[in-house]
Each structure stands twice: as structure tokens, then as C-alpha cells.
């Protein structure tokens, strides 16, 4: 999923302060799963903002709405009337959702209420970890299904650097050394010999280094 984290109340408050009528628009898919922008978070944020502005003696009208996904037109349309009633949209979707709303409603300012952080997993309750950078050319088969591009701090493709210690990355002991994980898993799979293979430099053209990407599916074009 896309993992995100809600911005601080202070930052959000500053963003919406110039407006009197605000729609807080949640997204019911990825950011809901990571507790950043689903309907529960929309409700909590609305209360917190009302309270914060009230303390300042400032009147602000906040409307709440959550759609299933802010990255698909079909669901975005459900927000049309609510958006028309307000001066600004504070989107709690990922960066893609924020921009898609802006694309559909060109005269309405759309503000981000969430910091989009990474493509990751729920490793355990309360812990999300980055697993993929969306490089566009998956090489997980070479690395026992542990991605060194997403998970090695130096994106090394040919083995761990000299800073791997007891399975930890030199950058931060809280980070697992991706290469230790790769080696452990190769060992389990009986494929340790793979480590001797020279892995070519990455062709970054498939990543966003090649410019903004598009995916065309001819078979789905109506």
C-alpha cells in the first residue's frame, strides 16, 4: 500500500488558516489502512482543528467527507457538491489523490494534509516499513525477494557495504541491513552461490529518473 502520515495539527492549521469554509476530504483506501486519512482520521482532525481555531477566537466552517479513493474519477465525483460548497479542500489522500482532486476541480485550492511516505507493508501493529520504490523494472528475483534498492541505504546491488554489523545498517541500528536479509534468505533457499553473480548497473530509465511515467493499457481503452 501507499503509506502516509498525517501532517501535524500546527502545519495543517497554518495551511487552512486563510479560509473560512474547509472541506476535509478523506480517502478510504491506502491512507485509511495506515491510519492517516480515512473517515476516522477526518473526524478526529476536524474536531482538533475546530478546537484549535476556537481557542484563537476564529470562526471556521469545516465539512467532513470521505470517498473510497481520491485517485479514481468515479469516486472523486461523489465529492463534487461538497467541494462546491467550500472554499478549499484539505485532502487526506496521498500525493496522487491530492493532485487528482486538483485536476478535476481546477478553480478550487487543494491542500495536502498528509505526508506520503512510501510503498510499504504493515509489518506488525503500529509498524509500517518501506519495501518498494516503484522503480519500474522489478529485479527481486535476483535478491531472494528482498529489494536492495528500497531497503539498502546505499542501494547497493552487489552485496553489503562495510557498515553492516550484526544484521543492522550503519545508518541507523533500527534499520535492518537489507543485504543481511538477502544473504539469510539465500542461505535458507540454498542459493548462496547467487551472491557471486555480478549484478549490472541499474537502468534507471524505467524509474522516475526517466521523467514522469505513464502506463498505457491498450486492452482497457474504450
Amino acid at each position, binding site marked *: 500500500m501507499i503509506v502516509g502520515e498525517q501532517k501535524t495539527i500546527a502545519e495543517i492549521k497554518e495551511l487552512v488558516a486563510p479560509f473560512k469554509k474547509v472541506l476535509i476530504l478523506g480517502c478510504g483506501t491506502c491512507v485509511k489502512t495506515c491510519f492517516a486519512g480515512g473517515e476516522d482520521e477526518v473526524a478526529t482532525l476536524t474536531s482538533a482543528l475546530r478546537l484549535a481555531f476556537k481557542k484563537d477566537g476564529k470562526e471556521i466552517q469545516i465539512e467532513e467527507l470521505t470517498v473510497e479513493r481520491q485517485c479514481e474519477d468515479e469516486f472523486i465525483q461523489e465529492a463534487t457538491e461538497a467541494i462546491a460548497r467550500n472554499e478549499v479542500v484539505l485532502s487526506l489522500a496521498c500525493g496522487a489523490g491530492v493532485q487528482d482532486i486538483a485536476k478535476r476541480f481546477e478553480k478550487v485550492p487543494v491542500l495536502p494534509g498528509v505526508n506520503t511516505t512510501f510503498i510499504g507493508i504493515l509489518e506488525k501493529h503500529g509498524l509500517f516499513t518501506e519495501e518498494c520504490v516503484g522503480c519500474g523494472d522489478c529485479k527481486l528475483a535476483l535478491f531472494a525477494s528482498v529489494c536492495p534498492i528500497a531497503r539498502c*541505504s*546505499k*542501494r*547497493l*546491488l*552487489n*552485496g*553489503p*557495504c*562495510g*557498515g*553492516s*554489523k*550484526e*544484521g543492522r545498517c*550503519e*545508518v*541507523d541500528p533500527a534499520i535492518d*541491513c537489507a*543485504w*543481511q536479509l538477502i*544473504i539469510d534468505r539465500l542461505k535458507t533457499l540454498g542459493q548462496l552461490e547467487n*551472491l*557471486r553473480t*555480478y549484478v*549490472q*548497473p*541499474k537502468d*534507471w530509465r524505467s524509474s522516475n529518473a526517466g521523467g514522469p511515467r505513464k502506463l498505457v493499457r491498450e486492452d482497457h481503452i474504450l
Partner: protein
Amino acid sequence: MSQVSSPISTLQRVLAEGTFAVTGECGPPRGADPDVVNGKIEHLKGFVDAVNVTDNQTAIVRMSSIAASAHLLNKGLEPVMQMVTRDRNRIALQSDIMGAYSLGIRNILCLSGDHQTFGSQPDAMNVFDIDSIHLIRTVRDMRDEGKDMSGHDLTCPPRMFIGAAANPFADPFEYRVIRLAKKIDAGVDFIQTQCIYNMDRFKEWMKLAREEGLTEKVYILAGVTPLKSAGMANYMATKVAGMDIPEPVLKRIAGVPKDKASKEGIAMCVETIAELREMEGVHGVHIMAIEWEEKVGEIVKAAGLLPRPEQS
């Protein structure tokens, strides 16, 4: 690794002749004053065969390794230009290798580099377009095939004597020799190791390297750093990534009075060099006297490694 008819550099010549090589290290200043580099050169000249010039080491912005290497050349001291993949993409790396060669630089040490979060500007973006093994292969292909990474023929290909680092003390240990083999396959000519304080582990690593036949394929220069004080030893043991300083070493330096600690550190360093000289497959020593270049002469002399061969 047999006799080389036309060595690329002094360092290659010294190693090919079978002389126990000595390299030093020079960290460029956090400023643009060439006299700082020149001062370090004076401390090192005559005592070492070549000097590593670090490339924004510990991710702290400094005078570039290419420029500082050129200052060394001007003073008749051979540089080993360090180059990290942290700050430059493949385009910039290849361009700088050609530029460095044009200035007379003949040795390169290919590294990935300390992560920028350790440095003075942790808010910087890193590059890591390619890794150190890719860089080794790139320099090799430029030299031996006369081609850049795109396969384009180069007019006057840069001919570098290619080095890389190895850390026998990092984990996973059993992989460390495989990594050395990968670097050799990629085209490395010489290796400089992390500072050695844990001699048992280094011996074990060398044994594995010998068993794989790697010491026949690459020159290994064992890294040493003299300890200045117990405080420095503790700092290195606990704060510097990839460092392994065993308890007895820490105790020995802490066991002498403060004003005698640096003398003890130098004595320990000289003893380590003596042990390394006797070790099969060790072809030289790399002395990293960090901001203590003035002691290199004393160490090399006490280790019985003087006089050094003529510079080419």
C-alpha cells in the same frame, strides 16, 4: 600480478617489484587553502609510496579529491584519488576519471562512500546511481577496453591502477571474502583494508582469502591507524561505523598515563605493522594517521620500512 613492463604508477611498480608497499592518507581541508594540503604533503613525502586523498570523507564537504590530488602531484607525491559513488552519477564519475587522468592522476580507490546522514549536511540527497563494484568495472573497462559505460570508444582512455576497500570486520563475515572475490572479478588491482585492531579476525579473513586464491590475484594493503588516546580509541570503537577494536586493545591504551598514550598508540601501530609484514598475502600497509600526518615518518621508520623506493 607478475612483473609489469610499464607500470601505470609508482604504487603499481613498487608492488610488482615485490616491495612491501606503504601508503598514507591525506584528508583535504574544509576550505580552499592549498597550503593545508601542502603542509600534509611535507609530513608524508619520502615516507610513503602513495597517498590516498579522501573524497568528502565522513560526508563532510571538503576540497575535492581531484584538486587535492593535483596539489600532491605538483609537489612530487603520488596520489591515490578516492572516488565515492555517493555524490556523483555515472556521467559525472566517468567525466571526473578522465579529467583526473588528464591531470596526471594514476591511482584510484573506488568506494561507495560514507552515508550522507553521518556528515555535516545530512539534509543532502545522495546519488548511489552505481555501486563501488560497478565503479571498479567502469574504470577497468575504460582502461582495458578503451570504452566508457555506453560502449563508446574513448580517445586516450584513462589508465588507472585500480583500488578498492575491504572491511574484514563487517558482517556477515562469511560473505566478506566473496565480496573481495567480486571486486577482483570486477577488475580491482589492489585492496586497502579497514583499520586492523582485531588481528585474530584479520588473520581468519586472510586465511579465507588465501584459500580462495585471492591473494594471488590482488595486492592487499593492510590498514592501520595509530591511536592517539584512550578517548579516541573509545570513540572509534563505539561511534565509527565498521570499526572493530577489541577490549584488550582498549585496555592497553587506557592503561598508560595520558601523556604517554600517544607514544603507546604509535608503539602498538608499529607492532601491528611488524605482524602484518610476516603475514602471507599481505603486500603492504596503508597508514591512516587521521589529522596526525606528522607521525607517519616516525611510524614508518620504527617499522623498518625506510628508505622508500624512488617515485616514478
